[in-house]
């Protein structure tokens, strides 16, 4: 979230699209209800009339996978009707930047942007660059009239998304589109604000990243970024998924969103060079210019005294990616199926049910020599070898089950969607032989280390040199009593020497050797500080010798009245509750909306130390610099971008600087209604048949399991997957809970009354839902909550089913099996997140 949960109550308009908070984030509805109480309008856009839709002021259906068309139409509407916030757009976004005149969009080039390489399925982005002036700064036209300025390019690009066109793609009635565009567009005024809440309904598409980009453009046009009640807000699907992402759970990032090193970046200097954005604009804070400090402090946290200036701070010991190497979910299981792995730790997950194309995942597991399943319960993954269709006698995989402690049986922090890290104490001791994850890792570490020591092995240095001071050690040197506080402190970081601010004369002491770091502002690139994750520096700190776990704070004051509660726990970065909050004020530092002032500049505020006048009040600002109007020291608001402004034009993405509508890999249309050449996102990685005809995966360089079938009469219906409030994820926790199972006992598929009539299916009938990849048994839930879509003058039916169920429990198999047996192996062009929210199925009565 750019904002936070409570902040939703500050909105005038709430757009829920790509999410279903009433069912998947019930507590969020408390804040939505509060906003509505104060007159806010709730808009819900979803293929299905959900429990969230039941609370909406305006609901609109759309066909799965057409969000960019829906939102592209809104951009056109906002521009044409001059609903945008002109002052904000001109000063705080790159709307005024001039782009290379060679740049061309899909309207001119039959569905692709300039620079497309058909063979490599990727772009040469040369023509996407800004025009630079003689000082190397982007050229700008603040009047927004230059035909090559971003604003005009945006206008041209989305001129193709008129309401009728959009309606014919999305299946949303034209009048609903206009109504929603009007209401959401009303937040372009300084005193009105709109927020967007999304989840996997936006991300899990081959255009997932661009779905969110489209909304980011809208929020920038309307001046809703940085504002209380604004932002683009990802509702995370697990209580600590934000924390695990922050701490580097994905293959392409280290903790704190530092890119994973590549083999071609042979030393730390190269790594820093390649990953530190440059700008010649002195008014841009360009926060990532601190990259060198963060990676060096990270290496010091990991390798401690073994990371020295002389050994390049042990950079060589970090794992590296080969050029073009991708280790995302789909690729991992693809490689597993191709015998590229011997072993696998399934840690706190259930890929046999949660993974897209779960049938392929299950086959891949059978190729393993060994698997360790760390979970509260056995699940479909740990017991895959006795699952349906498995030839148990032929499977050689040795499975180890390690029982893990649940969240109430251990101490530690969790970070919620609003980036709030909250410390939790242990309620009860772990049951039976179960252990907290950290203790399991501790055991593993010392055993692996001993194996290296006793028997040797390839490249022992990264393991043998780890700094592992997480509690009291026994005689053998093993940590005998694991102390999670030591981990939290290491994440925060320490001063490893007396650290001075050398910009002052004489230098002033920032921190004493051995103390916990005050914040990431003090981190150094010379090895004198450590921090396991720079974003969390200040989470466990020290003031006047007193150690303070900021995450355990429970202050209940709300000085701004906006629900930020700065004394409650701690949020990254540096307890800033609204990201980009410098955009919530005008050029002079006065809030656009004084009624909901996130921050404001007080010219008379005196710094207690320097006695200098002028300072910010309210939330922790995005840096202490004065507002932009100050010609000398004023800074731009979007500090994480080298440009210093929000990107309406985003030249960094794989699939284009402006989002464009492409159909899902499996869609009911022969052609993309926008243009006939490129039906699907032209930059996604296809697992077979780059050239087509996509009939026989094995003959076209892929695995049989990767088969897909688009515009295919065998699978005529659009399908999507989702969750319900009664179950959680693959149901490993909730299916074992009779109270939850009683409410939602088995796999079901929701379909419209119209489709049911066509198929002669009655409510409650048992049916088989099948895709090109698999079949699941389900109970037909015939409902008015789905309606057929009118798409390009034909009728398109959509159905939906939850992915909570699995064959293993209940033991009688009554719940059915995972909906992911149906979903395809295909991912987003930028992130490779699987496309499980739009695919094709058939339904037959049993």
């Amino acid at each position, binding site marked *: 979230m750019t904002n936070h949960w409570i902040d939703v109550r500050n909105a005038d308009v709430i757009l829920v699209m790509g999410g279903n908070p009433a069912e998947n984030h019930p507590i969020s*509805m408390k804040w939505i209800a509060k906003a509505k109480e104060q007159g806010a309008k709730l808009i819900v856009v979803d293929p299905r009339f959900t429990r969230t839709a039941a609370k909406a002021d305006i609901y609109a259906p759309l066909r799965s996978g057409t969000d960019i068309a829906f939102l592209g139409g809104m951009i056109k509407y906002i521009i044409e009707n001059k609903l945008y916030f002109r002052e904000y757009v001109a000063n705080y976004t790159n709307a005024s930047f001039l782009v290379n005149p060679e740049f061309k969009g899909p309207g001119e080039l039959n569905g692709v942007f300039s620079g497309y390489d058909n063979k490599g399925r990727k772009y040469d982005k040369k023509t996407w660059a800004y025009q630079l002036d003689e000082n190397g700064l982007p050229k700008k036209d603040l009047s927004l009239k230059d035909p090559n300025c971003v604003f005009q390019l945006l206008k041209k690009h989305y001129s193709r998304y008129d309401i009728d066109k959009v309606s014919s793609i999305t299946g949303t009635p034209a009048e609903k589109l206009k109504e929603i565009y009007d209401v959401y567009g009303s937040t372009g005024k300084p005193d009105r604000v709109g927020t967007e809440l999304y989840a996997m309904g936006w991300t899990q598409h081959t255009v997932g990243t661009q779905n969110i980009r489209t909304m980011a453009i809208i929020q920038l046009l309307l001046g809703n970024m940085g504002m209380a009640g604004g932002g683009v807000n990802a509702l995370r699907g697990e209580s600590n998924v934000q924390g695990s992402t922050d701490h580097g759970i994905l293959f392409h990032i280290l903790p704190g969103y530092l890119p994973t090193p590549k083999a071609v970046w042979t030393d730390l200097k190269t790594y820093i060079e390649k990953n530190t954005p440059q700008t010649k604009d002195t008014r841009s804070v360009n926060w990532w210019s601190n990259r060198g400090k963060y990676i060096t402090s990270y290496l010091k946290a990991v390798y401690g005294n073994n990371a020295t200036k002389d050994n390049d701070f042990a950079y060589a010991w970090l794992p590296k990616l080969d050029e073009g190497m991708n280790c995302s979910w789909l690729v991992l299981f693809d490689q597993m199926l191709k015998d590229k792995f011997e072993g696998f730790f399934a840690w706190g997950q259930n890929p046999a049910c949660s993974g897209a194309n779960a049938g392929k995942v299950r086959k891949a597991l059978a190729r393993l020599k060994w698997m360790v399943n760390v979970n509260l319960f056995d699940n479909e993954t740990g017991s895959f070898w006795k699952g349906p269709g498995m030839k148990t006698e032929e499977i050689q995989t040795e499975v180890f089950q390690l029982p893990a402690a649940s969240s109430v049986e251990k101490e530690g922090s969790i970070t919620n969607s609003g980036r709030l890290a909250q410390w939790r104490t242990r309620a009860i001791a772990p049951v039976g032989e179960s252990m907290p994850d950290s203790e399991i890792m501790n055991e593993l570490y010392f055993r692996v280390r001993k194996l290296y020591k006793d028997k040797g092995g390839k490249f022992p240095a990264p393991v043998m040199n780890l700094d592992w001071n997480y509690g009291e050690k026994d005689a053998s040197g093993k940590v005998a009593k694991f102390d999670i506080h030591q981990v939290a402190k290491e994440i925060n970081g320490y001063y490893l020497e007396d650290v001075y601010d050398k910009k002052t004369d004489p230098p002033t002491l920032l921190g004493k050797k051995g103390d916990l770091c005050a914040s990431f502002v003090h981190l150094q690139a010379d090895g004198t500080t450590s921090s396991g994750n720079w974003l969390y520096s200040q989470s466990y700190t020290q003031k006047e010798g007193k150690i303070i776990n900021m995450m355990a704070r429970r202050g209940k004051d709300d000085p701004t009245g906006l629900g930020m509660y700065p004394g409650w726990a701690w949020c990254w970065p540096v307890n800033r509750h609204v990201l980009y909050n410098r955009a919530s004020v005008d050029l002079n530092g006065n809030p656009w909306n004084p009624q909901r002032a996130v921050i404001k500049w007080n010219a008379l505020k005196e710094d207690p130390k320097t006695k200098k006048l002028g300072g910010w009040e309210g939330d922790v600002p995005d840096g202490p610099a004065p507002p932009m109007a100050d010609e000398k020291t004023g800074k731009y608001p979007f500090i994480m971008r080298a440009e210093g402004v929000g990107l309406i034009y985003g030249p960094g993405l794989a699939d284009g600087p402006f989002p464009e509508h492409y159909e899902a890999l499996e869609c009911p249309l022969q052609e993309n209604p926008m243009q006939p050449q490129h039906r699907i996102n032209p930059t996604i990685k296809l697992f077979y048949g780059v050239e087509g005809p996509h009939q026989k995966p094995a003959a076209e360089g892929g695995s049989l399991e990767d088969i897909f079938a688009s515009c295919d009469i065998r699978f005529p219906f659009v399908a999507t997957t989702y969750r319900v409030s009664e179950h959680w994820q693959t149901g490993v926790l909730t299916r074992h809970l009779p109270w939850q199972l009683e409410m939602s006992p088995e796999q079901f598929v929701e379909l419209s009354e119209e489709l049911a009539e066509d198929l002669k299916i009655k409510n409650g009938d048992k049916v088989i839902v099948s895709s090109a990849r698999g079949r699941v048994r389900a109970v037909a839930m015939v409902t008015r909550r789905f309606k057929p879509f009118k798409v390009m003058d034909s009728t398109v039916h959509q159905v939906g089913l939850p992915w909570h169920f699995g064959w293993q429990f209940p033991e009688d198999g009554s719940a059915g099996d995972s909906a992911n047996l149906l979903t395809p192996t295909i991912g987003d062009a930028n992130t490779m997140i699987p496309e499980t929210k739009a695919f094709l199925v058939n339904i037959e009565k049993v």
Partner: protein
Amino acid sequence: MGRMSILVSPELCIGCRGCQTACKEWNQLSGVKTENRGSTENPPDLTPNTFNKIRYVELPSETNMVRWLFVSQRCMHCGDAGCMKICPAPGALFRTDEGAVAFDKDKCVGCKLCVTSCPFNVPRYDEKNKISKCHLCAERIANRLEPACTKTCPTGALRFGERDALLGLAQKAGYAKVYGQADLEGLGAMYAFMDAPKIYGMNENPAIPESVVFWDNVLRPLAYLGLAGAVAASLVHYVAFGPKKIEEGKKDE
């Protein structure tokens, strides 16, 4: 402390059913094997182990494909409670200091008269033929804790408090009159309905059957002169509902 009640606001309810689980958790009621019958709603009805549940009501809508209402179903803790009126076993049903209609299984004689006398079809009988229903978490509220269901409700669709305060709250939210405000000497579970109660599947004018009232006012004093317990119960039943209907009580899973 005045009479304590629950205010149900279906407009705020998101149908998450946290209340259903919280009730079962606190009261340690077992979950039963159900099947999906083509509806979100489950179990299909109140049971001896299901004191409250959400009913999912689908109605035609002018603006959308459907209007979907979520309505909490539970014991209404009537001010004038039919079940208490008819119950022939002293102390089996009783009113707590906070105003809840609670029960004592040890004193219940299993006659099921309360079932037929309830205007809301609430009481159920367990496998030992003893009454079972929502008691407003009597032991919690006696200790100044709110009931499990209202405690867990994320949106304020279920609110617990002093009855007058809740009425004030509803009024402030724009509900001039709430369902159960005056019916049956005031219900202990009141509903802030936007539309007519029948839209939400509720009786417009809930009332105790006339025969129950007759028994309570006229016959009970006579019956206790010479009869007690089960004998009284069968007599009562004969008078109130006619012969051989004792087995008619709603059969539950």
